[in-house]
């Protein structure tokens, strides 16, 4: 099974959600999360592989721009067209208040301190919204249990 966390970027709250899901993150300390705020990772549009849990479920993140629900609809349509179901691919949107500001800061030019600003603002917002992301992951885990 594949699980894909989607949000406006694939290297901020989606990445945190993926790490919570994999049991690697229990408190809002994002310093050691590999790839956090690394927008270069997110540019291509390909899903980013994060890891695999103890039930062999592969976890990915994907940045899909501002219309996350539209992208979810497209990806679910694509999954259905290819003959797969939710048992093979679960698409979970992750949304937090202030995500537009995160996206804005992640686009700030590097030469004007973009990387620093991005890390600073994202960490500040996501620390305060950590419980929202945790709740999203818990809801997903509940749904996955029901599915099996």
């Amino acid at each position, binding site marked *: 099974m594949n699980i894909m966390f989607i949000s406006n970027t694939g290297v901020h709250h989606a990445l945190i959600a993926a790490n919570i899901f994999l049991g690697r993150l229990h408190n809002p300390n994002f310093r050691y999360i590999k790839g956090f705020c690394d927008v270069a990772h997110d540019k291509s549009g*390909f899903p980013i592989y994060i890891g695999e849990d103890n039930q062999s479920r*592969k976890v990915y993140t*994907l940045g*899909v*721009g501002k*219309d996350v629900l*539209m992208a979810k609809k497209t990806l679910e349509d694509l*999954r259905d067209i290819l*003959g797969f179901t939710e048992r*093979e691919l679960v698409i979970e949107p992750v949304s937090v208040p202030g995500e537009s500001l995160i996206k804005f800061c992640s686009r700030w030019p590097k030469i004007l301190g973009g990387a620093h600003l991005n890390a600073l603002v994202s960490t500040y917002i996501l620390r305060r919204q950590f419980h929202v992301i945790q709740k999203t992951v818990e809801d997903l885990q509940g749904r996955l249990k029901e599915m099996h």
Partner: protein
Amino acid sequence: MGRSTSRLAPVFLACTTSVYFGAKRTAHLSIKTIIQEDGFMHIIYHCFGGAHSSVTAAALHLGLLPKDRLPTLEELMAVPYFDNTDNSDFGSIRFMGLDEYKNAVYVLGKKSLGDRFTNIIHGTAEMLGARHQVLAVNTMPNVNWLMKIGGFISRRIGMVFLGRPLVGVGTRKAFFALVNLVEITRLQTMDRRQVDS
């Protein structure tokens, strides 16, 4: 990881399409299942709204429009979904038909996601182990200002009487570029079929 489909395994699609009799649009019908044989591809033409350039390209691919001359506005309007979408259609992969090689052709409106969306689709298909089954084609590079302005007036503002003729003129201007894009896409699908076999 995703399953690998066996030879002639049916892939079930659940998609919605419209039935057209001549140039007149009639009721929407839901096609529950289409049996797609293994080895054939899903070709997705995508643009901003999924109403003009992608629909024209898909129609060209399916032979619904002539390739050797400019279509009339009536012929364009007779194409399913042409200038006939609303906000709920954004993000929906809509089935247009099967081509002569039994490849399924779809259209998609992806708003301002740009060429990144091609990678999103290809990447997701890759994750499912079905990369060889999908070809996403961005038609936005062939969209001109007339199409953009006409599309905005017709679809966003809702002034169809003003926007539609503009879109028609714009589509005719971009027509042979779209023909070229479709021919390249068809060659790509044939290439892949040869590689797969």
